């Protein structure tokens, strides 16, 4: 009995001495449940709606008001011509559009089927289906609210909505998943490469030799990052070929731009690995830390599986700091929408800023080592 007590006490001491692991063990399930719980919520409550109304009349205004008061839609633009929708969709300003045709009220009043077009951005198929049914429900509600008929025996008013999906008309989920998967895999591999190779140098003692040498911290980091950047870049090319040949994901935009963004994203991940290695002393720890710190956020918060738009405000803010979130948007934009830097510069700027912050921090972490 005493020996067992001793044994339990000893284990307790292990845990107490290694506070960091203990904290991870306790905090991890809490964080995971929180993240999964919120992230898996797939309802959408802030649909960015554009309206094309070439000839506003009483009925179009009434239906537009219904959309506005539904609580789900936020009107981002009202335009006159369908052509004006293009940039709104390309930049992601609008997720969905309703397009009216002249004579909407007249058709309704006479019982002629009134035409209406509902266009939905389908780069995220699950969200798109939801948006589609939301819009349909608003239209149906409006029709039901109309007086049954003005003059018997005129037919009941009808709206015949046409439905169209943009960018991914066939709802190919591989089109959605592959760019996300690329982001996911690249970040893990890249972070692991630097984290492990730096902690290996710490373990073997060669890091000390480098620190004693006249090399400056940034030189050590550039020396580490450069070869792995090249390897990472080869991976980018390989997975893009794979995406094309195996999953038939289109590449509608510029290949050069996509490769550049891929390189930038790899750089971010490599810098992240360096930062992890600065805080860990063994390869084993570095590997666990890297896997935890890259896998979870990149599954949950990058928009890879769960749309960032349907997350609560706090998580959306957190997602700003996740490089994968920006790369997923960029990769989908270039591959599926065929857009370029004119729309993707904010995301690119975010990625570049994260890279700058992480690289600066990793140089700092080297200076700190010389306490």
């Amino acid at each position, binding site marked *: 009995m005493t020996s067992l007590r001793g044994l339990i006490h000893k284990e307790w001491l292990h845990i107490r001495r290694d506070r960091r692991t203990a904290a991870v063990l306790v905090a991890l399930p809490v964080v995971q449940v929180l993240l999964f719980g919120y992230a898996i919520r797939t309802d959408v409550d802030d649909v960015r709606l554009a309206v094309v109304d070439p000839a506003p009349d009483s009925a179009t205004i009434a239906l537009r008001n219904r959309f506005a008061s539904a609580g789900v839609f936020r009107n981002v633009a009202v335009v006159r011509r369908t052509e004006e929708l293009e940039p709104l969709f390309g930049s992601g300003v609008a997720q969905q559009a309703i397009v009216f045709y002249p004579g909407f009220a007249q058709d309704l009043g006479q019982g002629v089927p009134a035409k209406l077009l509902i266009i939905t951005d389908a780069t995220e198929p699950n969200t798109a289906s939801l948006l589609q049914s939301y819009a349909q429900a608003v239209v149906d509600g409006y029709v039901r609210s109309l007086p049954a008929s003005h003059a018997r025996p005129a037919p009941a008013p009808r709206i015949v909505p046409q439905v169209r999906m943009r960018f991914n008309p066939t709802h190919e989920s591989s089109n959605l998943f592959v760019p996300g998967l690329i982001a996911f895999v690249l970040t893990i591999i890249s972070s692991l490469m630097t984290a492990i190779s730096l902690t290996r140098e710490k373990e*073997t*003692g*060669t890091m*000390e*030799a*480098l*620190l*004693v*040498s*006249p*090399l400056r911290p940034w030189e050590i980091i550039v020396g580490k990052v450069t070869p792995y950047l090249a390897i990472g870049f080869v991976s980018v090319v390989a997975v893009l070929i794979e995406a094309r040949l195996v999953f038939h994901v289109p590449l509608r935009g510029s290949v050069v731009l996509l490769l550049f963004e891929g390189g930038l994203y790899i750089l971010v991940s490599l810098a992240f690995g360096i930062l992890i290695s600065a805080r860990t002393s063994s390869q084993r720890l570095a590997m666990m830390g890297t896997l935890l710190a890259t896998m979870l956020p990149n599954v949950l918060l990058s928009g890879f599986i769960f749309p960032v738009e349907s997350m609560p405000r706090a998580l959306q803010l957190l997602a700003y700091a996740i490089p994968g979130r920006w790369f997923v948007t960029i990769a989908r934009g270039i591959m599926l929408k065929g857009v370029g830097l004119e729309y993707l510069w904010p995301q690119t700027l975010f990625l570049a800023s994260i890279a700058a912050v992480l690289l600066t921090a990793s140089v700092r972490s080297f200076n700190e080592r*010389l*306490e």
Partner: protein
Amino acid sequence: MSDSAIHAHELTRRFGDFTAVDRISFEVETGEVFGFLGANGAGKTTAIRMLIGLLQPSGGAARVAGHDLATESEAVKRSIGYMSQRFSLYEDLTPRENIRLYGGIYGLTRDEIRQRTEQMLARLGFSEVADIAVRSLPLGWRQKLAFSVALVHQPRIVFLDEPTSGVDPITRRQFWELIYDAASAGTTVLVTTHYMDEAEYCDRISIMVAGRIAAMGTPVALKTQFAVDSIDELFVRLARPEQPA
């Protein structure tokens, strides 16, 4: 004073409440082989790590190779070599590749590197193993190679932190021949060791106890001063003063 290779004045390092090195002052002359002795935890490694710029002193000052440690760390780093108790070569690289790497890090030209490599390989008798991975060499060979690599840029001072631990007596002997070679070529050597017979090989030694230098001088002078037969005996007496000698 500016002549001395190392000049430490009241050098101190604290870790929280614990004072690992407590106001030590000493000088090492150019070309001297200076032994740093002390029990585990006496502060030897902390002292060395301050002198090579891996640790910031909490107090005191030091000049290394004529440069101020606090303000000219770059110049200090350029003029010293270091070999730690942990192996500091890349085990998956060959001896030739390791020499080339460190030569490049210390800014040698390609010609200098080629020339030094051949010299070093010949002197070590490594010509036949120059191109096989370092990890497949015996420990003693690796230590000799590590020492030579620490000297690749011909530093004015070389710091050796327990370079011979775990090495057989014959290789230790050969290792000390390399140390003497370096010293006679004008390189100052500061070496820590656990082996008391090695202490006798040093020009001068200092014995650290609990962060302070308890005794310093030539081995012969110290033995006379403390009336002991060997450094071993002196070491035990200083390290455990509560016990009757």
